[in-house]
């Protein structure tokens, strides 16, 4: 299947500067510099590109907000703080296509007229960091960034910043805190980074995969980009599949392709030919879906209408032998562990959900215990600085709604009926 980022839809091999140039690399930058920053912004806006880090916000709109701010200077941050369980797309992109990512960063900086850009990369991603630093050096030498880029009036400095290896450090305002030399703790919003980000200045913070789309959008145009995907979700998405399928890996697919294609054609089906019990289509914070949704198109709108979310494209397939109560408890424990402990409501909610679910899992609790899950979630909804407080809700509530008998059996016997 054709991709935008990976022509064959999967990672081929690492692309150094020579290989990148042979495939038209930095052609987008040359084209962009001949036109105005507004022209780049318009192309990105017209393409309908959405953020690939999880929230799916329109990228062109976000960049335009920064570009239009009169406050100077503007900044660009490449958010490579990826730490979502099972997600490996940003790491593999930086490792294998560092110049594509870098050209995306440079184009974004030109579009928002930022004289400085930061590459914020998970510090545990050694190979990705090395690859990006190598690409930075090659690109600097070739005049793709620095003083008077390719003889134009555009100046750009690019710096690297290691990101702490935890989940919250990937949140955009937590990234800004790290860049300011502080702890990775999210800020209260508004203001949003687009208007008041790094050192209070307008900052475009974008995910790695998002920016990797920019070179092709600028080179081939918004209409070409819209030839992939759906009207609501144009383009492609890189999905991460893990050990629950025969062929784990990352697969780039146009938005709107059915889940079944990802599972069967890309992943080679469920590992060990077990039968499917539930699907979690967008990482640990997404709601579970039943196997009957296997023909659901993978795009933002369709997945949302089915009651879940596409997140950053980590798709999990649970099989009949897996205990949904235990899986839900693991998710609750993850969010409790990753809460930065800054907001009291988040701390209380994530701790409480783990305590309740442990009681359910171990059995012998009261019937009313199950009702407390949604009460705790509803009480704390939206009370944190960042979205983490809202994340345990969808998986926990959907698991309970779709598999009430499993929860009931656990509560009564302390064992899973399907295990």
């Amino acid at each position, binding site marked *: 299947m054709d991709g935008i980022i990976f022509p064959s839809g999967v990672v081929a091999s690492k692309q150094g500067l020579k290989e990148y140039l042979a495939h038209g690399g930095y052609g987008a930058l040359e084209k962009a510099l001949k036109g105005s920053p507004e022209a780049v912004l318009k192309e990105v806006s017209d393409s309908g590109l959405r953020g690939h880090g999880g929230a799916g916000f329109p990228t062109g709109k976000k960049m335009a907000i920064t570009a239009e701010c009169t406050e100077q200077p503007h900044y660009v941050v490449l958010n490579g703080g990826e730490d979502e369980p099972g997600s490996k797309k940003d790491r593999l992109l930086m490792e294998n296509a560092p110049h594509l990512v870098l050209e995306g960063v440079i184009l974004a900086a030109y579009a928002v007229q930022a004289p400085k850009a930061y590459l914020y990369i998970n510090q545990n991603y050694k190979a990705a960091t090395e690859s990006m630093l190598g690409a930075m050096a090659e690109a600097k030498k070739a005049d793709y960034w620095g003083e008077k880029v390719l003889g134009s009036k555009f100046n750009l400095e690019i710096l690297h910043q290691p990101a702490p290896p935890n989940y919250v450090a990937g949140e955009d305002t937590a990234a800004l805190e790290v860049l300011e030399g502080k702890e990775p703790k999210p800020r209260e919003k508004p203001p949003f980074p687009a208007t008041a980000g790094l050192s209070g200045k307008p900052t475009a913070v974008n995910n790695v995969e998002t920016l990797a789309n920019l070179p092709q959008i600028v080179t081939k145009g918004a209409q070409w980009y819209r030839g992939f995907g759906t009207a609501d979700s144009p383009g492609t998405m890189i999905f991460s599949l893990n050990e629950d399928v025969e062929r784990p890996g990352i697969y780039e697919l146009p938005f709107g392709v059915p889940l079944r294609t990802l599972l069967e054609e890309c992943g080679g089906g469920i590992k060990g030919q077990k039968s499917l019990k539930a699907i979690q289509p967008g990482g640990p914070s997404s709601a579970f879906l039943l196997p009957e949704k296997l023909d659901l198109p993978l795009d933002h709108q369709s997945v949302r209408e089915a009651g879940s979310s596409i997140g950053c494209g980590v798709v999990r397939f649970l099989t009949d032998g897996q205990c949904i109560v235990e899986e839900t408890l693991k998710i609750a424990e993850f969010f409790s562990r990753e809460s930065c402990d800054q907001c009291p409501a988040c701390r209380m909610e994530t701790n409480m959900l783990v305590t309740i679910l442990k009681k359910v899992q171990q059995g012998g609790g009261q019937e*009313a215990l199950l009702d407390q899950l949604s009460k705790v979630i509803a009480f704390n909804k939206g009370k944190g600085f960042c979205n983490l407080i809202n994340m345990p809700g969808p998986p926990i509530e959907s698991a309970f709604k779709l598999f009430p008998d499993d929860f009931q059996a656990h509560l009564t016997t302390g064992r899973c009926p399907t295990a």
Partner: protein
Amino acid sequence: MKCICLVCQNIDCKSRGSEEIMKELEKQVGEKDLKDVEVKSYMCFGACQEGPNIVLYPQKSWYAGVKKEDVNDIVAHLSGGPDVKRLDKIDSSLKDLIYQLLDTGVF
């Protein structure tokens, strides 16, 4: 009646001295030989800004912003004295949520 005296030991309450308050409570409960009272730590009541927080259960008395000098009055309540009304300042919706959790055995 048996009473569990739950003392929050989460970050905010601790930073405001809840460990010392818990020790003082244990000391005074021991000195008064209140055999029906168990002093126990609790993970969080979700009222961190109002902490340190103490909840008496099943009596359902919630004392917030407790200081070491308030412990005498709380122990007097535990000994059959009146409620410490000046420390009762938590919103009823949060009280309802936490009391329901305690009623279902979430300790």
